[in-house]
């Protein structure tokens, strides 16, 4: 096996599916802040070569004891409805994504973030930071205990409210699989006016952001449960062929 990086004998593995139709456009006038923050020039096709099909495999040493239980990070318990949020991380081919870092952040039960920029009149909870992380297990499972976040107002449009949500950040196994998204709760009456929700072109794809109420996994006399599976991009089914030589 050559160790010369210039040898070029290493055939990159298959690339990942380009699933752009699933994701919101960067230019979405309904979300006003996109106006000055989306590229206007065309994107250049980046072949999925070694840098793109690899990625950081980290997290083992980043997880503290209470990082997956947001109700145990302070001397007292936070206010609000205690919930278990769990699910599986898989790729588009249905394969579990094992040992991958999952990071979450969220508002407290009243809908306020512990952030200097969040000043709407709702109290902070001294017993809630709203930040968690965990690693998926060998079958791609993750599990958090937290409290149900509240909805909160923002200034995007008249009487704008964000549906209750938890921010999720995932790495997968490759740079191309990186995903930051938000999990929502079933039956939220605020979806209709939320540009984040409406920016996703396909209604079926929107529904994939909604957790399922999971009565079977509630902890009796302790916590309700929601199940939310996450799907990262899968591999292209064909072996990589050089796109860059194909003028």
């Amino acid at each position, binding site marked *: 096996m050559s160790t010369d990086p210039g040898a070029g004998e290493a055939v990159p593995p298959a690339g990942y599916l380009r699933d752009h139709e699933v994701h919101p456009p960067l230019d979405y006038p309904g979300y006003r802040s996109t106006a000055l923050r989306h590229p206007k020039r065309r994107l250049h096709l*980046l072949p999925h070569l070694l*840098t793109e099909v690899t990625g950081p495999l980290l997290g083992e040493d980043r997880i503290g004891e209470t990082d997956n239980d947001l109700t145990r990070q302070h001397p007292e318990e936070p206010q609000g409805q205690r919930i278990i949020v769990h699910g599986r991380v898989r790729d588009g081919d249905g394969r579990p994504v094992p040992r991958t870092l999952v990071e979450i952040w969220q508002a407290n039960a009243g809908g306020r*973030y512990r952030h200097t920029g969040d000043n709407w009149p709702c109290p902070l909870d001294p017993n809630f930071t709203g930040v968690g992380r965990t690693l998926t297990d060998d079958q791609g499972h993750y599990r958090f205990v937290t409290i149900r976040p509240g909805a909160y107002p923002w200034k995007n449009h008249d009487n704008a409210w964000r549906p209750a949500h938890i921010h999720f950040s995932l790495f997968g196994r490759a740079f191309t699989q990186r995903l930051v998204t938000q999990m929502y709760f079933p039956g939220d009456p605020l979806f209709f006016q939320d540009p984040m929700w409406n920016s996703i072109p396909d209604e079926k794809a929107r529904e994939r952001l909604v957790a399922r109420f999971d009565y079977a996994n509630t902890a009796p006399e302790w916590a309700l449960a929601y199940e939310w599976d996450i799907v990262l991009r899968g591999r292209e089914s064909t072996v990589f062929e050089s796109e860059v030589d194909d003028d």
Partner: protein
Amino acid sequence: MSTPHGTTPSQTVGPYLHIGLPWPDGPFALAEGAEGGVWIRGRLYDGAGAPVPDGLIETWQADPDGRFDHPDDPRGAKARPGFRGFARSETDAEGRFEIHTLKPGPVPGAGGDVQAPHIDVSVFARGMLNRTVTRIYFPEETAANAADPVLSKLSEAERATVVARPAEDGYRFDIRLQGEDETVFFDI
């Protein structure tokens, strides 16, 4: 073959990403104090030329030998002590970010091509419903850059947006999301 499952859609990191994503050692793709490190510093700007204070820059790259610590590198995973290959830097009130790393080596491309040393970059921010992706190339790599299969597809003006500038302790790399000097972003 199993039936492909639909991918989970992206959503913005929103305005409060600072509570969830930054790590104390985030900027250190190369451990603090390790030998041979360079700083890559820059600012993230919006289409009005204003700094973006609620953004996050992430980088992923090969080591100086062009190797990755990853099993999908067909040459085998290769770890380098003190080197993570990955950095994460939130932007500050002036839109500034910084990463401490080793300059990567050339990396095999497809079909015998060699890619010039480069770093893959993800840009996240409030107001971005999905990340954008760009690359950092190095100004002293004139010949390698000219032969790079990705860079050579760009116009001269476009290339200029993805080649870093030399700085005292490393490089300078500004990112412009929109506007006259808009950075080249890639469809990944």
